């Protein structure tokens, strides 16, 4: 028997429309319809990259800057007009150095393919300037101190005390007023014991030379090493070539610190320094040195380049790697079971999470302003950082601007934002964050869509933004959608987000549909084919695993909770018919009553006849020590105690008690019953017992 299949259902199952070569007009998600012309809207772009970050953040949205200017007293209309003009200029040119009249100290960058690298380079430069300043301060201080040691030694030497040196240390004005020969002779008679040994002088001189010729943060216009690369392989090669120089300088800094403090000892340190040279530096030593910035396009991260990238990440080398994806979906090879081209970058970011020691930040270009703090953290992190960015500038989204495509990637979970900071704590809760994702507790974010129906009535619906909506932005994926004619809908439709959740076999009773709009903002219901629905399912699964890492719907916790609840209910059910158990409680309560007795017993340990001092209350006033320093002595905190009560007389104990300013000496009872005047002494001691 032959079954008649409706053309819409056939399209859903096969992805092909009977009798039609193309899918009709180019459509885009209805939720994006209002935002297609961004130049008229106020949003996060363009960004202002500030030349001077002392008075504000390193970069911020132009709109935030405008708001601040308005708050600061700028005329509102004028400020907004300038903002609008600048936004239009930035959209046209990509980057603008605004006129001075705009009161902006920096560069404006719009969201395009060049923006992520430009932004990261800006942040990286500022970070490195901070590091360079700290490094120079350290090295200059060490150079000055080491130089002081050499100069002081030179002044003490025979040469330093020669008549010529002494004369040179005076100005020309008074050089006739002194007899430098006599002065030199006189100074020569003084024996100087603390001259430097030859080995120490040599060590200091070689350390000084190493500090002065370093090329990592050169001063005085010396040639600097390059630390910005466009390829991981080149960066890795440069890093390897510089390792000996890094070790030499790190060793020189450590040695200089020791010499400056006068703590260097050949016996202790020589062997250790030799071993240090042999074993190499710990990577945290590299924190002193500049970080590398590597900007790589995801499409190029293949073969040797990919190997180098993985080696950098696995080794935790101090490199900040921008992995930029321009085309996230890739060519639609629906029936070949392919891996989309852009998924590579996403996978690398996920894989880097498993390395545990790499700072990972994934965000679309539209999110970079929001992720500013994390971007700065990635730059300051002392190991490898992988910053995976989707630019949205793949060039397949028709008239949709890159910002909107990038934002759609975040909204649709195609390119979710996440960060992993190994320095933030010991557990995933501290390290991993899903901040920046819209409605992270849901599978897909829900938004309100208002439109006019065929009867010109306003309709408002809650619409999920899914991977399928994101795919609808890409002209290459148009064949996976089929607009349903207004009249004569043959099959029942259901929101595509609902269809993702329920997997059916065979012919579905309802077909997944989306709200799409055409160039004239006319709303269409469009059916999605089964292949794209399956892709959306995979995307949702990937998002759910991220949710688990981020502490949302943690399956382990839910399972544990269910088990504990079951146990608790079981225990409660078992305990319910046994009310007699209450009577057991009073017997158990009797136990703590014995506790207060313990201190009393401790006090009883001291015999009443023995003399003692309340040592913690001693004010170290010397009174008792002056009376008998064999009987009384100070402890490690310089507080008095009785070390030998038999080393003196009972009279001395009583006198010490009487003279103690804080009355903490207790003389006890006399040891020698034959001591003279005991009766009087016992009476005097009564108030101290």
């Amino acid at each position, binding site marked *: 028997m032959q079954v008649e299949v409706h053309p819409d259902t056939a399209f859903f199952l096969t992805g092909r429309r009977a009798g039609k070569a193309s899918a009709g007009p180019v459509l885009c998600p209805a939720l994006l319809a209002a935002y297609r012309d961004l130049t008229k809207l106020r949003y996060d772009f363009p960004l202002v990259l500030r030349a001077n970050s002392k008075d504000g953040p390193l970069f911020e949205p132009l709109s935030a800057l405008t708001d601040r200017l308005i708050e600061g007293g700028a005329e509102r209309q004028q400020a907004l007009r300038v903002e609008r003009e600048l936004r239009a200029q930035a959209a046209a040119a990509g980057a603008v150095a605004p006129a001075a009249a705009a009161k902006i100290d920096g560069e404006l960058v719009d969201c395009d393919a060049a923006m992520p690298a430009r932004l990261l380079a800006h942040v990286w430069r500022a970070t490195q300037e901070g590091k360079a300043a700290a490094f120079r301060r350290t090295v200059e201080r060490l150079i000055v101190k080491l130089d002081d040691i050499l100069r002081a030694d030179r002044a003490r030497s025979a040469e330093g005390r020669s008549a010529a040196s002494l004369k040179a240390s005076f100005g020309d004005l008074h050089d006739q007023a002194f007899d430098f020969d006599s002065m030199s002779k006189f100074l020569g008679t003084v024996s100087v014991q603390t001259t430097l040994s030859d080995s120490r002088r040599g060590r200091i001189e070689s350390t000084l030379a190493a500090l002065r010729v370093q090329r990592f943060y050169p001063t005085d216009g010396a040639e600097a090493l390059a630390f910005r690369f466009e390829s991981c392989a080149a960066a890795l090669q440069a890093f390897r070539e510089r390792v000996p120089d890094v070790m030499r300088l790190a060793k020189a800094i450590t040695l200089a610190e020791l010499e400056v403090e006068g703590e260097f000892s050949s016996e202790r340190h020589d062997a250790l320094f030799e071993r240090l040279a042999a074993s190499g530096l710990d990577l945290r030593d590299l924190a002193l040195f500049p970080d590398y910035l590597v900007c790589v396009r995801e499409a190029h991260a293949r073969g040797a380049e990919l190997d180098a990238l993985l080696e950098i990440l696995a080794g935790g080398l101090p490199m900040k790697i921008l992995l930029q994806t321009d085309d996230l979906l890739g060519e639609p090879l629906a029936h070949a079971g392919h891996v989309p081209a852009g998924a590579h970058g996403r996978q690398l970011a996920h894989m880097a999470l498993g390395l545990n020691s790499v700072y990972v930040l994934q965000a679309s270009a539209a999110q970079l302003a929001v992720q500013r703090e994390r971007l700065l953290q990635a730059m300051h992190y002392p190991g490898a950082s992988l910053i995976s960015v989707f630019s949205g500038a793949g060039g397949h989204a028709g008239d949709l601007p890159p910002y909107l495509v990038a934002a759609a990637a975040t909204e649709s979970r195609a390119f979710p934002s996440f960060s992993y900071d190994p320095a933030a704590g010991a557990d995933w809760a501290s390290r991993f964050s899903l901040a920046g994702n819209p409605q992270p507790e849901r599978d897909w974010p829900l938004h309100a869509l208002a439109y006019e129906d065929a009867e010109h009535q306003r309709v408002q619906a809650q619409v999920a933004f899914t991977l399928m909506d994101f795919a609808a932005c890409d002209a290459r994926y148009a064949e996976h959608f089929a607009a349903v004619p207004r009249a004569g809908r043959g099959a029942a439709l259901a929101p595509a987000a609902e269809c993702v959740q329920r997997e059916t076999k065979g012919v579905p009773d309802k077909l997944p549909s989306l709200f799409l709009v055409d160039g004239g903002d006319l709303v269409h219901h469009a059916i999605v084919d089964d292949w794209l629905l399956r892709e959306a399912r995979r995307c949702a699964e990937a998002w759910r695993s991220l949710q688990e890492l981020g502490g949302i719907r943690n399956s382990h916790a839910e399972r544990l909770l269910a088990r504990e609840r079951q146990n608790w209910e079981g225990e409660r059910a078992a305990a319910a018919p046994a009310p007699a158990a209450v009577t057991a409680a009073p017997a158990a309560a009797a136990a703590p009553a014995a506790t207060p007795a313990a201190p009393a017993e401790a006090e009883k340990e001291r015999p009443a006849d023995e003399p003692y001092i309340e040592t*913690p209350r001693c*004010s170290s006033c010397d009174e008792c020590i002056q009376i008998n320093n064999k009987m009384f002595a100070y402890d490690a905190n310089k507080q008095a105690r009785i070390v030998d009560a038999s080393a003196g007389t009972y009279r001395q104990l009583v006198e010490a008690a009487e003279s103690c300013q804080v009355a903490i000496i207790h003389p006890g009872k006399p040891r020698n019953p034959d001591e003279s005047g005991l009766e009087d002494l016992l009476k005097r001691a009564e108030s101290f017992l």
Partner: protein
Amino acid sequence: MTMMATECLLELCEQRHELEDYQSGVPRWCTGCGDNAILAAVQRLCRDEGLRPEKTVFVSGIGCSSRFPHYMRTYGFHGIHGRALPVAEGVRLARPDLTVFVNTGDGDCCSIGAAHWIHAIRYNMNMTVFLHDNQIYGLTKMQASPTSPRGTKSNTTPRGSTLEALQPLSVTLGVQNVSFVAQAVDWIPESLFEIVKAAYHHQGFSFVRIVQRCPEWLPKVWDPWLHDPKRILMLDHPQGMQVSDGLKQVYKNQLAHDPSNLDRAREIASDTDRIPVGILYRNPEVPCYEELRATPGLRTTAKLKQGLEAELDKFTFWPQ
């Protein structure tokens, strides 16, 4: 956690010092003098905090208490009367790597050195100042000091002093930029040590008034407080000093005082009946003068020479 190789090398130099390593000579103070208790507490602080003797300096003025640097085996500067604070400020500026302590008496600080005291509070340079307040000039054998109670009979006031005593805590708390004020008494060593420690850890001008007995010239003046624990008001707060259980049993008069409350600190300081013991005020946000005036570069020999030449060039007449 593993440690960097270079850190290990640097740590090899760290040495453990014992109390004896900070002791120098036998103090000449009278037997029973409260200075001994302060000395013991400070030496204990140095040991517990592992202060390197060659990186620590004690500066003093003139008076019994100002002999303090002689008894510390660290660097010391026994200065001139009333000028301990300016000397200490100079040390801070020239050698910011040193830990600076100041020991000054009630005469040294509150009389001849009063102007320096006021401005040192305002400068808020990072140093720890101990005001040894025994309410009398002891070294010169009993003359009334600014903190002597009204009616104190002394060589300069044989009929009894005529003015009310100056309260050092109230004065300090009234000066702009005050950042740390505490009070201790020499006869409660536990709290004395805790306060000295808190003062040391504060970044800024830490002012500690230590009520101190003079057994020679005013032996009875503190007896009402010494023998009546109820007249000691223990200031207890998680952000200030936390009174131990042992002390709580003896000194039952306790007050929960938040040291960030300046107005309340001033009220407590003006209590004449009880002696408040603890941290009255602490504000770590007040900037230190040396940080405000820090120059970006190092004062290298070349830089100093360049500056000097530039100044001298202003007055040089070049031959035509």
